[in-house]
């Protein structure tokens, strides 16, 4: 594959993925409003389109058309930079996430992953350190939140961003450490490699029927990951940075229209990233039943379906929890992160590494 | 095929800029950042040399082979030290600010006879 083709294919893939992702984000907001409405015993959006299905579109148009207000005495450059940074970083994460095997369109075979390359002789290689890149990009994402709050020159924003940066740094540790168990089991940092390790392992299912997903040996790691991921994405019950009852709207108090929308999208994209990661690392990614009778294209797309289902499950979980749990107090949040999750994650690593070492 | 000297020159430039920052900036946090810049400059030359020795196998004076990858390990250690330094240094800055209510190093000059 020459460089030109590579670039063309990559651009096409990026366009498709970003389109799907943003659409997904838009309809996640719809889903959230619907679900939370149902949980709270009300209807949610119903007016725009059937079942309110066009509501996201309306929201988007509203965001775009609203006046883009930049308050006085903000640090203008950073005020504008912050939402862009947040959205960019969340979108970059998607680049390394594999959605399936490879796909053949018009004689061209390519990986269902932006950063994946299909070799001429078959086989796909993706970036070696995919997981690390996601972690790194996530950690850069903190800047968006932090700078937004600080540049707003408002006390609520500042407090929100202080909380956000402290919270995200703290839970990043637990998040990273919760994944080490997976790394020990799979021996690779490549996301595709981790999924393939689960798929190959599933040829010998645990107890004869359980797929060889890492959720089973790493159940503790999974829950640590899940909790830390909720905190990383500033979702309930860890949504202190934007706790409206305390801080009006936290770090994005002063933001409106498209800049607010960017934060909004960044948050949902992050949710997607986290959900994708959870599916990939703990639930075998696109692993699922294969149906050999289908045509090749559909056969190749079937794993994407399984993957989408798993991701949807996590999105649903997010919304479900939002509708169910109250918010933590800030000291509880920090204590939980440092005094419970972090030691537990370390213990998990120690036990896992002993087992791995024992099994040779 | 990037000449090694390019990396070294970049490293030297960054290092010198770090030193200038240390000398010329007044804000203690910025001074601290200048130190980080110097550390990064050194890291760059570590990584560059690691690759260099990988393609130019060499021996140490003791006769042992140069382990090129140890350049990366050194970078790792530098980062660890930088992290520790940042933790303690920023804690010091906070306590200095608490008592002196300034971040200007020219006004934090009690360290004299």
């Amino acid at each position: 594959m020459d460089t030109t083709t590579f670039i063309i294919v990559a651009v096409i893939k990026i366009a498709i993925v970003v389109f799907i992702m943003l659409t997904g984000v838009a309809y996640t907001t719809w889903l959230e409003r619907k679900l939370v409405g149902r949980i709270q015993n009300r209807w949610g959006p119903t007016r725009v389109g059937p079942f309110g299905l066009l509501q996201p579109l309306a929201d988007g148009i509203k965001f775009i058309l609203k006046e883009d207000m930049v308050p006085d005495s903000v640090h203008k450059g950073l005020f504008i930079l912050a939402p862009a940074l947040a959205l960019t970083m969340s979108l970059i994460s998607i680049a390394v996430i594999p959605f399936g095997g490879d796909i053949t369109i018009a004689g061209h075979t390519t990986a269902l992953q932006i950063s994946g390359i299909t070799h001429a002789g078959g086989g796909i290689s993706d970036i070696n350190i995919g997981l690390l890149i996601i972690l790194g990009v996530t950690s850069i994402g903190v800047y968006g939140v932090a700078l937004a709050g600080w540049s707003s020159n408002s006390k609520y924003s500042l407090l929100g961003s202080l909380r956000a940066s402290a919270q995200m740094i703290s839970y990043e540790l637990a998040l990273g450490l919760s994944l080490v168990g997976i790394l020990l089991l799979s021996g690779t940092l490549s996301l595709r490699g981790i999924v393939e390790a689960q798929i190959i392992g599933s040829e010998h299912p645990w107890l004869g029927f359980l797929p060889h997903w890492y959720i089973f040996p790493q159940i503790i790691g999974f829950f640590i990951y899940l909790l830390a991921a909720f905190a990383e994405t500033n979702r309930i019950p860890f949504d202190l940075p934007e706790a409206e009852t305390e801080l009006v709207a936290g770090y994005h108090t002063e933001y409106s229209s498209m800049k607010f929308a960017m934060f909004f999208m960044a948050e949902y994209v992050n949710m997607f990233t986290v959900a994708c990661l959870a599916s990939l690392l703990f639930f075998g990614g696109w692993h699922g039943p294969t149906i050999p009778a289908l045509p090749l294209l559909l056969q190749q797309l079937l794993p994407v379906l399984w993957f989408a289902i798993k991701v949807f499950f996590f999105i649903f979980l997010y919304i479900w929890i939002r509708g169910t749990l109250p918010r933590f107090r800030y000291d509880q949040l920090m204590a939980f992160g440092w005094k419970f999750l972090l030691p537990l994650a370390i213990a998990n690593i120690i036990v896992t590494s002993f087992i791995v070492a024992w099994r040779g | 095929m990037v000449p090694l000297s390019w990396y070294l020159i970049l490293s030297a430039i960054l290092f010198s800029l770090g030193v200038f920052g240390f000398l010329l900036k007044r804000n203690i946090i910025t001074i601290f950042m200048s130190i980080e810049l110097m550390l990064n400059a050194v890291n760059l030359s570590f990584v560059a040399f690691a690759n260099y020795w990988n393609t130019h196998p060499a021996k140490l004076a003791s006769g042992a082979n140069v382990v090129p990858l140890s350049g990366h390990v050194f970078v790792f250690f530098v980062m660890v030290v930088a992290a520790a330094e940042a933790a303690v240094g920023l804690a010091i800055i906070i306590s200095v600010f608490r008592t002196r209510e300034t971040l200007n190093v020219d006004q934090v000059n009690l360290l004299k006879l």
Partner: protein
Amino acid sequence: MNQPSLNLWVIPLLPLIGAAINGLFGRRFKNAVVSTVALLFTAASLVWAVHAVWTLWPGGDRPYIETVATWITAGSFSAPFGFYLDQLSMIMVLVVTGVGFLIHVYSVGYMAHEGGFYRFFTYLNLFMFFMLTLVLANNYLLMFVGWEGVGLASYLLIGFFFQKDSAANAGKKAFIVNRIGDFGFLIGMFLIIQHFGTLNYADVFGKIASGHYTPELGWGLFTAIGLCLLFGATGKSAQVPLYVWLPDAMEGPTPVSALIHAATMVTAGIYMIARSHAIFNLAPHALEIVAIIGCLTAIFAATMGITQTDIKRVLAYSTISQLGYMVLACGVAAYAAGIFHLMTHAFFKALLFLGAGSVIHAVGGEQDMRRMGGLRKKIPITFWVMTAATFAIAGFPPFSGFFSKDEILGAAFHNHFGGPVLWVIGVITAGLTSFYMFRLWFMTFFGEYKPGAIDEGEEAHAASAPAHVAHTAASHSHGHADDEAHGHGHVHESPWIMLAPLVILAVLSVVGGWVGIPQFMSGGQNHFEHFLAPVMESGPPTSTQAAVPVTGNDTISTHAGPPSEENAGQEWLLAGTSVAAAVIGLFFAWLLYFKRRDLPGLIAAKIHGIYLLVLHKYYIDEGYGAIFVKPLLALSTVVFWHGVDQGIIDGLVNGAGSTSKGIGNELRRMQSGNIRSYAAWVAVGGAAVVAIMIWLGVGK
């Protein structure tokens, strides 16, 4: 010859262990424990020494040399920790351990009531260690260690009653005067190293014996070495001109005077000269000077002894005089006679000192003979042993002193260099010795006991003598009154622990000379001389003998040699003369101090000038004070203290201080507290380092 190792190193080490135990823990021990430890280790040393000598006796491989460890190695030069046992050191080691042990026993009784009991025995054991090192060393350097060590022990023991200024000063005096002599010894050793490249006896004497060094080839060198060694010996053995410390050394406890300043340490010089006889044999001029010095010392000290009234001082001058005899013997190349006299002297002089100690003990610390008298009845055992010793030292046959002294006088008479003159002086000295010893004897044991009495002589002397001299004498005579005050008034005999050594020594004083009965008397050979002969003739007799005709009259003979049958008559005559001298001395002593006790005062008045001269020891101390001490003191004060020490050294130190202070004061301005200026200096330093590295081409 294969023989089992004798482990000679154990002999000196045992007393050192004793010293260490007593020195480190003695403060907490009871006196009984301290004395047990001290005696035990000394006795063990004695036993080991006897064992070693016994093993070698029946013709073992002598000299027996044993190297324990390497001590100093510098280039080709090396000095080991090595030990050397031949006939000479056998005699010395037996005398030292034997007499030393007896004196240890005596000390237990004598020092019983003194403070610092453990300290005393620590020092005493330490002395034994160094003395045994000295006599057993197989090289000059190790000998020098012992030499210095006994000097140290001597210093410590003289100043044992350090609360007393006179004792402390006497200690310092002994130490300093000894140092002057040591200087000579050191120079001598350096010369030996330079010319022989070694200090080991065996090597040095072996090289001499190999015959490369004939007198005319190396007489300058050997004379120089000999004179340097002699100078060392004059310090240690209290010879003219360095004898002045010994009388003052009587400030130490009496057992110390007996052990160190009579029997053992002061004979180290004699031992050293005898040990180095091979060198002296090749240096006839040095030998002449040895003879002159010995002779001078003998008569000089004898005259001074006549006027002393302090019982220990009389003995001190007597010691100097007898040491002079021994040096004279060495000077006439009669080393065996010198060593013989050394041995007998060790017996009777130790006995005399210990007896004097017993007397002092009996009269409650009094040392002035004029306050004694009539003690014969009160302390009979002391009297009898003192009598034996007095007769021995005076040279009455068959007491030991007679034989050894006769040997020396005979050898002196036959000497090529001024033989008859030396002999005459020796005989006069013998007469004087007899006189002052019997003076002591009569004054102490006969007449009336008169504590507190001062006779006319003393009054006359006190009236006419300069005040400061009187002060010295008085301070000595009352010396131990403070410290040794155990029971004034009642005169009592000493306990048996003190008397037993006295008796043993008395027996030795009587019979000790019989091992060396000269040939012309016994008809057989002189056993002592015969015993020592292999050592004393280990030099190159052939070459020296061959040298005699070459160098002519001035050359020495290595040894007076056993007199031939024809000379026996002459020998009898010489012996008779010395006995006659002794008898004359006895007669005058009886006359002056028993029969006509007023006479000494009259005579003193008659020849007042001479009397004062002698009483004040020829003003030697004052002369030294004027010639050496005062100028030195002035020089030290003006030049070294005020000039060098205060001006230059203090100036340098203070200057360094004030300079750094000044520089610091200026540099302090750099410490502005401004972090960025510090950083600037760091940057400059970094730039300098990099520039230097590039300049030096590091890594190229």
